[in-house]
Every structure is written in structure tokens, then in C-alpha cells.
């Protein structure tokens, strides 16, 4: 019995962790290519959550179906943001970039607070309380769907970077911006595309997250930090690392929430972050620079 219990918690944590990992994937893509740290990442994720909440409220749309809509919307916003503002800062000192994106994050989170208020909002789905039995485990249907969707999107992203021409061009950009420019790639366009993709991915993660958590503006800074933690634990710029980091953090949060008190679970993540920063700053799957 107790073993089953732990197994169940670990599996739930793994599924949640996949969604965390997807969000972190967006951050990692942007950092890996544009070399800009998106301090507004959690804010974009919560925007994706509210999008799913609104679509669910208006048309009863399932978050799984809202996800592509939010992907499109956030792709456009990310693209515009990079084109309009961030691109000017690519060559500027690091702290200037941070401050710019912190400013954008502050605007986004407070705009959402003003629009939606501080109270939690959720989406009603018919299968909210369903459970699925897999071997000895009893898993929430919502968690299974969110985790499965996260895997599908992550796989699509990996395939895009691995096989498509544009994906390869973006990777070339990440490896050597100067070389990419020399062979005739339009760096500015690829950067905008990348920022758009990163934003779209985190938008999808946000929409999926509404299956698990109620949307609140206060979640935004928490998710920004969570994505950072995951990316650093997994290895900055490593896509499989982000997914692995997400799963690790998701599982350790779930176990810590069960063994300690739920409110202490994020403390555990920060502990993991500090240890990784000190012992293996390049992350689990990252390469030493």
C-alpha cells in the first residue's frame, strides 16, 4: 500500500512536471538562440492560462483545444515583442535586457491583475473528477491529458528543430550567429521567429496548466522562477534538459508537498536550484561553456 501511494504521487508529479518542462522549453529555446533571458516567461504562461479560461467560459472550449489558439496568439505577441523591442537589446549589456524584460513582466502581470482581479479562475471540463487506473496507480484524467499533450507538443518542437529547414537555420543561428549571417540567413527574422516559438510553447503550457491549477495573476512570477529553475537544473540551452528538469522538479515538488507541507514544496525547488548552481552550474544535461 505505501509503495503504491508513493508511486501514485511520483506519477502525478511526473505528469505535472511534463507541463512545467514544456514551459521551461520555451524559455530555453529563447535563451539558446536569441541569448536573451525572458524574465516575462511566467507572465506569458499565465496569459495562456487566462486565454484558456476565457475561451472555456465563452464557448465551453476544452483547454486542450484552446491550446492551439493560445499558441497562435502568443506566437504573434512574441514575434512582435522581439521585432519591436527586444531585438534592439540583443547587443546591449545583459542587465539592460533583464531590466527591459522585468519591465514587460511587471506590465503584463499588473494588466492581468486589473483585467481579471486577484481571485482564482478555472475552466470546467466534464472529466474534472475522472480517474484512470493504470496498474496499481490511480491517476487524474486531467493530469494524464495535460501530460500527454505536453509530450506531443515537445515532440513536435524537437522534430521541428531537427528536421525542418527553418529549424536547422535557427540552430545554426544559435551555434554561430556570425557564421549564420555569412551564409545568408536573416538573423533578425529568425530571432523573431524563435521568440515567437518560445512564447507559443509557453502559451500552450499555460493552457494545459489550467487543467491542473486555477489561474491567478500571482502565479506569474512563481512560474517565471520555476521555469528558470528547471532550465538551470536541466542545463541552459539544452532542450531535453528542460524536459528532464521539469519532470525532476515536478516529482520532487509532489513528494515534498506530500512529505512536508504543501506550502513548503517550492522551497525544495529553490534548494535544488542552489545546489545545482553551485555543484554543476551548466546543469544536468548542459555543456560546459
Amino acid at each position, binding site marked *: 500500500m505505501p509503495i503504491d501511494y508513493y508511486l501514485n504521487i511520483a506519477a502525478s508529479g511526473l505528469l505535472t512536471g511534463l507541463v512545467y518542462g514544456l514551459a521551461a522549453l520555451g524559455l530555453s529555446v529563447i535563451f539558446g538562440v536569441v541569448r536573451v533571458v525572458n524574465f516575462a516567461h511566467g507572465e506569458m504562461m499565465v496569459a495562456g492560462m487566462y486565454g484558456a479560461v476565457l475561451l472555456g467560459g465563452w464557448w465551453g472550449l476544452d483547454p486542450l483545444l484552446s491550446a492551439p489558439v493560445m499558441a497562435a496568439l502568443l506566437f504573434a505577441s512574441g514575434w512582435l515583442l522581439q521585432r519591436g523591442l527586444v531585438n534592439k537589446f540583443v547587443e546591449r549589456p545583459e542587465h539592460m535586457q533583464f531590466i527591459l524584460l522585468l519591465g514587460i513582466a511587471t506590465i503584463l502581470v499588473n494588466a492581468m491583475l486589473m483585467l481579471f482581479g486577484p481571485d482564482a479562475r478555472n475552466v470546467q471540463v466534464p472529466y474534472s473528477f475522472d480517474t484512470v487506473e493504470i496498474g496499481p496507480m490511480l491517476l487524474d484524467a486531467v493530469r494524464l491529458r495535460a501530460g500527454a499533450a505536453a509530450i506531443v507538443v515537445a515532440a513536435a518542437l524537437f522534430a521541428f528543430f531537427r528536421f525542418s529547414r527553418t529549424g536547422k537555420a535557427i540552430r545554426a543561428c544559435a551555434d554561430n550567429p556570425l557564421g549564420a549571417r555569412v551564409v545568408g540567413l536573416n538573423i533578425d527574422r529568425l530571432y523573431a521567429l524563435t521568440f515567437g516559438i518560445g512564447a507559443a510553447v509557453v502559451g500552450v503550457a499555460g493552457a494545459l496548466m489550467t487543467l491542473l491549477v486555477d489561474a491567478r495573476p500571482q502565479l506569474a512570477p512563481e512560474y517565471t522562477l520555476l521555469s528558470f529553475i528547471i532550465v538551470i537544473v536541466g542545463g541552459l540551452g539544452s532542450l531535453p534538459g528542460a524536459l528532464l528538469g521539469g519532470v525532476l522538479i515536478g516529482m520532487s515538488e509532489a513528494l515534498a508537498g506530500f512529505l512536508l507541507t504543501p506550502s513548503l514544496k517550492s522551497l525544495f525547488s529553490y534548494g535544488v536550484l*542552489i545546489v545545482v548552481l553551485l555543484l554543476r552550474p551548466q546543469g544536468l544535461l548542459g555543456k560546459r561553456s
Partner: protein
Amino acid sequence: MIGLSGVGFSGVTGRGMVLLVLTALGLAVAPLVADRYLVSVLTTVLWFAYVGQAWNVMMGFSGLLSLGHALYVGLGAYVSAALFVHFGIGPWAGMILAMLVAVAAGCIIGFLGFRFGVKGVHFALLTIAFAEVARIGFDHITWVGGSGGFFLPVEAGASDPLNLRGSPLLFYYVALALVLGALVLSRVLLHSRLGYQWLAVREEPDAAEASGVDLFRARMTAVAVSAALTALGGVFQAFYFNNLFPEQVFSMGRSIEIILPAIVGGIGTLVGPILGAFILTPLGELLTFLIEAGGLDLPGLKQLFYGVALVVIVVFRPEGVWPWLARRLRLVRQPGEGA
């Protein structure tokens, strides 16, 4: 790093000094004409000017970006408040321990960061992580109230400056003294051997090290000075507001409010944080006032405005308002002036 080589006192002409002294005198007599509300706004302005100055020691002088300065405010506030509430030790004595605790926290972060070569965004994240750990941790320390908040006893009409209990006027003058003290200290430090080392470390760490600067020591002292000064701001906050909530005191939002004055006024300049606070806080207050006068209730509008200010400044005046203003004013008054 263009934009950081700011205009300090050194660039200020006699005229500028006169302006500064006049401003200080004006602030000293301001409560004679200002009403209660205005004094409270000015106190807030001075508080942000002070903590902005303290943050500036790390980022502005030494190039170390801390995005978790709420940690030092919170530690200073909680330590002094706990000493007062539980042991009856007043803030004038308590602030020493408050500063020591903040310095110890800063040194732990600094030691971990600098010894293990945590740089750039990683260092900024380390500072955030420690502030967040404190936020969540203090939520669970019931000795100081936990998430329910920690309250200092308030007696109406009490006047006990030895325990920093008294009228808003007392706090106003304490805040003014803090700002002037931090300004003078920053000026002295910046023109000391240590200050030049900081600037060298900020601009070219490798070159600084090659010419014999102990990078680790220079950075650690910057963190320690900044943490100690910021903790004093926390002590002030605890006794001024008489209540502390981990969710507010240690929040990420608070850390951003602390960095705002220096960024708007001018990172690395002496006057910048003060000017920045004088620009931002009154504008924020005005905005709140207008919204309330319009009968609207929009929580978050002030912060939204701060976000816009951050973006506008960093896009259009990345070196801050003060260097630009100082240049402009001197140009206007004395066109043919040399360097």
C-alpha cells in the same frame, strides 16, 4: 559599458552643489508647510531613495546585479522587530544585529556566487532564489507571526524617539538623515581606494585582477555594504509601518521597486537613486489619487505604471535621467564650459 560611467558629485559644478544643498535644506523645512499626507509621501520617497542608493552600491558601483534586495530589507525588518517585541530591545541597538544578519546573508550569497563563479543571469537568479527562500521560510516561522504577519505594538500619541516610536515627523527626519548619510557614505566610498577597485571590477574584471585587485574581496565588500545599508531601510520600515508580512516584505515585486529609483535616476550615479525616487513615487501617488478621485478601484495600476517607466527609461534613457539632466542643465546655464 557605456551608460554606467555616470556623473557623480565629481562632475557636479559649484552650481550643482548649490542646487543639492538647497534641495536638502528644502527637504529639512518641508514639514513646516507640508500637510500630513505630503509628509507621508515624502517619507516614502526618501525611503526609496535610500534603499535605491544602497542597491546602487552593488549594481552601480561594482556591477553586481541583485534582484533580491527585498531579502535584506526583510531581514533587517524582522530582526529589529523581533528584538523589540520579544526582548524589548529598541531599534537603535537592534539595528546592529539587523545589519549583521543581513551582511551574513549577503556574504553567504556572495561567497557561493563568487567562489563558484556564478555570473550574469545565474548570479541574479541566486539573489532571487535566496529572497524567495526567505519569503517562504518566514511564512512558516511562527515566532515572528508566520504568514499571518508580525505586528509591533502601537500606542497612540507615544513619543519615544529612543525606541523609534513617535509622530510621522520623527520618521520623516530619520528617513532624511538616512538618505543624506547614504549619499555622503557613497561619495566617500566611491572616492576611496575601495571605490576605485569597485569601478575597475565593474568595468574590466580581468584587467582589474591583473593589476592586483582582489576581485573576491572587492565584490564581497560591495555586497556587505549594500546589505547592511539595505537592512537599515528594513529597520525603518518595520517601525514606520508596524506590520510585516513575508508575502510583501520579501516579494519579488518589492525587489523590483527597490531597483527602480536607481535605474530611472541613473545606475552608478550618486544623485540618480534620489532623483529617481522623486520622479517615480510622486507620479505613482498622483496616479493612485486620480484613479481614486475618478471613483475607480484598480489595484495594480501603480505597479503597471512602474513597469512602463522601466521600459521607457531603458529604451530611451538607458543611462538614466540624472546624467542627461545634469548635462542639459549645465549646457543651458553655461554653454562654453569645459570638462
